[in-house]
């Protein structure tokens, strides 16, 4: 595929350096090719590029008619819906800035962002979101207009500032006729250096920051990614991750606009898996936990298969472990092994890939968290080319990507195209790339703290280059601490090692400025529940199950295995886990224990569960604790439990033979 040229900041409209230009170009070049699909009313409704262009045109003019000006911010809230994606383009056509918000955040959380971003217009999915905004509106008076996609239940809302996207588009079409040339003029007037989009990072601490990205940031990075992986206009992508997240913006919007491939929106949250199978994407992104859940599902379902089937399954999976990845990496493999692999491909790998909906995958990414090696290998051995990438919003995702053929579970690969990386003396990773963000919105000091004048960005991650030239991330730089005996303590590293066990869902590790490392553990209700049923242990719910001794025994084994690994690592052998406990409730974003992207907020948790912390660093065996919890319906209540605390066996450090 020949990619159109791009010089940053080019003024003439031939240079495809803005989304409107890209869109109009696609409408010209591949007008009849499907740009978007949405599972709606039972079938995959489709829109070609030229249809999308028209829809966007109408919507943009509609917004203009409502008074949307260049530079205005357009809040976008809802599940992945075609029209919400069009809204992004529409805003950009008017020189405005789309600001997607996390659809599951509660009204209060929205206030800050809406206010901070000076949002005047909002386009939302449905009644749920409208209600939130109406709630917010008093406190964030800057909002002037709200457009909604799905009119269900909104029939009797009459507010002057509330109308449906349809209506807006209708007005837009009239406006378009009334003002010929307006659209094309404003759509083509933008340039690469203009602000393209604002994404709010769900900061682990403090208020979210609005990351301002220029068109060049987004488009050039997107294109570099496409070039490096050789993506074409024929890719199929399933858009199911929050639109407010930079990854979705890159994979389901930017790269589609650059390469011209197709975006598919699932019918509803409940049907994502079936929709995934129906579409069978060729290019796929998922955070590790998704792959984890998938694998857990596979194992659970296979448990119930007939003995013969299980035997066959395990035989071939074992073979795949030894052969699959080698074949995928193009390493030499004996003919016999190839044949067995082919056989396995017919009986297991092929059907499995297909049932999981990964049957047509050319390229799958995972990022955001470290992924368990055996999870990673499982998919690769099936012949699915899944790769880790390392990135962040400030750099429009791409910093490092694992090159084909050089995929190691414990590294994040080599720098992406046009990306420079350096490690400063206290181990923090810095990078410089075309994707480097413009600034934090209305927050110069944070900008200054994160980004040097010559364009280097502090990732806030500690890491180093392994001898094979691949970057290896151990932890958040600020989290890397020291035990009282002065040796290095990398909580995330420990947490991840534990989370690689399918039974363990979340882990919070402590040890900084303490005598030894210890952990809170969240068991995986589904996996452990299933495990319990097969041993017919009765349990009433999470809290009950978590507190069972047999479960503790099982978790203890996991902990001790991790200790064994740690003991082998000269750097970290001292941070073996001495004490652990299984938390009586699941960590939950609604309680502020996790970020919206499900990162643990360690300090917050440490405070929240003070008594338990105390218990970890004393020698009590059982600790009573009361916790405030928020239920789905917003009510709050108190959860009380007696949590057991256990000691884990630790191992004497073995000097790595070097």
């Amino acid at each position, binding site marked *: 595929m020949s990619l159109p040229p791009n010089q940053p900041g080019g003024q003439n409209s031939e240079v495809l350096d803005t989304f409107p230009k890209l869109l109009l170009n696609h409408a010209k070049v591949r007008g009849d090719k499907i740009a978007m699909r949405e599972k*709606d*009313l*039972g079938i995959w409704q489709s829109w070609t590029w030229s249809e999308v262009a028209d829809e966007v045109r109408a919507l943009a003019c509609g917004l203009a008619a409502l008074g949307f000006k260049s530079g205005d911010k357009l809040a976008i809230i809802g599940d992945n819906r075609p029209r919400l994606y069009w809204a992004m383009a529409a805003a950009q056509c008017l020189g405005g800035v789309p600001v997607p918000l996390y659809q599951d955040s509660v009204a209060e959380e929205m206030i800050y962002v809406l206010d901070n971003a000076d949002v005047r217009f909002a386009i939302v999915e449905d009644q749920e979101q409208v209600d939130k905004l109406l709630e917010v509106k008093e406190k964030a008076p800057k909002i002037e207009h709200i457009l909604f996609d799905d009119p*269900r*239940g909104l*029939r*009797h809302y009459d507010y002057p500032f509330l109308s449906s996207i349809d209506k807006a588009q209708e007005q837009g079409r009239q406006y378009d006729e009334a003002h010929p040339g307006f659209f094309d003029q404003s759509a083509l007037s933008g340039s690469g250096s203009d602000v393209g989009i604002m994404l709010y990072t769900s900061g682990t601490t403090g208020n979210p920051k609005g990351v301002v990205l220029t068109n060049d940031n987004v488009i050039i990075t997107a294109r570099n990614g496409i070039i490096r992986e050789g993506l074409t206009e024929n890719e199929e992508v399933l858009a199911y991750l929050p639109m407010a997240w930079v990854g979705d913006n890159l994979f389901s919007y930017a790269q589609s606009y650059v390469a011209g491939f197709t975006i598919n929106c699932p*019918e*509803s949250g*409940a*049907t994502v898996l*079936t929709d995934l199978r129906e579409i069978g994407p060729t290019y796929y992104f998922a955070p590790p936990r998704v792959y984890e859940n998938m694998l857990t599902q596979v194992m659970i379902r296979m448990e119930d298969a007939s003995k013969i089937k299980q035997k066959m399954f395990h035989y071939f999976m074992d073979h795949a472990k030894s052969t699959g990845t080698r074949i995928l990496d193009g390493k030499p493999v004996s003919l016999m092994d190839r044949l067995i692999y082919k056989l396995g491909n017919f009986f297991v790998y092929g059907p499995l890939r297909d049932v999981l909906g990964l049957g047509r995958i050319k390229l799958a990414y995972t990022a955001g968290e470290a992924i368990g090696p055996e999870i990673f290998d499982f998919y690769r051995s099936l012949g699915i080319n899944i790769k880790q990438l390392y990135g962040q919003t400030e750099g429009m995702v791409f910093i490092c990507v694992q090159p084909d053929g050089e995929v190691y579970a414990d590294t994040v690969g080599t720098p992406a195209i046009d990306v420079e990386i350096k490690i400063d003396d206290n181990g923090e990773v810095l990078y410089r790339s075309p994707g480097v963000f413009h600034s934090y919105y209305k927050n110069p000091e944070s900008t200054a703290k994160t980004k040097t004048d010559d364009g280097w960005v502090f990732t806030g991650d500690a890491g180093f280059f392994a001898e094979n030239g691949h970057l290896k991330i151990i932890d958040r730089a600020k989290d890397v601490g020291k035990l009282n005996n002065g040796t290095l303590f990398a909580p995330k590293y420990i947490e991840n090692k534990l989370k690689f066990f399918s039974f363990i869902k979340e882990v919070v590790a402590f040890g900084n400025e303490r005598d030894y490392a210890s952990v809170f553990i969240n068991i995986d209700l589904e996996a452990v529940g299933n495990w319990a049923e097969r041993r017919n242990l009765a349990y009433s719910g999470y809290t009950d199950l978590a507190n069972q001794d047999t479960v503790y025994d099982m978790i203890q084994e996991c902990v001790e295995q991790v200790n064994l690994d740690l003991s082998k690592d000269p750097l970290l052998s001292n941070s073996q886990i001495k004490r652990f406990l299984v938390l009586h409730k699941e960590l939950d974003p609604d309680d502020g224990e996790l970020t919206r992207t499900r990162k643990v907020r360690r300090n917050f948790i440490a405070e929240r569960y003070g008594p338990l912390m105390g218990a970890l660093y004393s020698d009590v065996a059982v600790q009573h604790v009361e916790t405030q919890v928020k239920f789905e319906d917003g009510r709050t209540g108190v959860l009380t439990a007696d949590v057991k605390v256990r000691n884990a066996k630790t191992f004497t450090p073995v000097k790595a033979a070097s």
Partner: protein
Amino acid sequence: MNERNFGEVILDLKGISLSFGAMRVLNNISFNVRQGEIRSIIGPNGAGKSSMLNVINGVYHPQEGEITFRGEVRKEMKVHEAAGFGIARTFQNIALFKGMSTLDNIMTGRNLKMKSSMLAQAIYWGKAQKEEIEHRKKVEEIIDFLEIQAIRKTPVGRLPYGMQKRVELGRALAAEPEILLLDEPMAGMNVEEKEDMSRFVLDINDEFGTTIVLIEHDMGVVMDISDRVVVLDYGRQLADGTPDVVRSNQDVIDAYLGVSH
């Protein structure tokens, strides 16, 4: 449900009495239903509620009394004619077509609207297919409305009770009825399901302006969503009026104190 104003009376029942042999099921019942309202018939089990519905949609023929429908007195009609008059209903103990999928059940609800000849259907491609598709669209809208996309192609036999109730509601809606009769739509449901169901009832009344006559044996949810309520007790009519009026009616209170929940 604050101040809602309704159209004229579309269904008026005067002095309805119904007996099976010696057993008198309904005794001189009179009430009317107005365009676009949610009209509830409540009463303890065996109060004759279901019989009342069966009278309205012509399954039973009352010995006495007259039924005025859309201004004209309705003569004794055959069971299958009710649908033609724009009266659809659901059933107390689910009466779905067990062998068919959710989709087909709801499609069947549109049988009266499908016109293509048997021959056309035999050939299928062309006329019949076009018709199938345009009705499929309507049905999909209902599926979407009732949020049952995930079970679209599941045989209804395999569905849990609550879901079956929803599918049955869908089948009734498919006929785009003017009056929708709901026979204990919330029977045997947990609180959450009841809330869902009443939301759907309200939305239907709201989105399609469908007049709804629903019967329930417990006052609970019904009182909140109904505009007017008739109370029956062993075939007698105890009270008729807005929920508040009915609630404060002495006979009703007595009758209900008699009933355990």
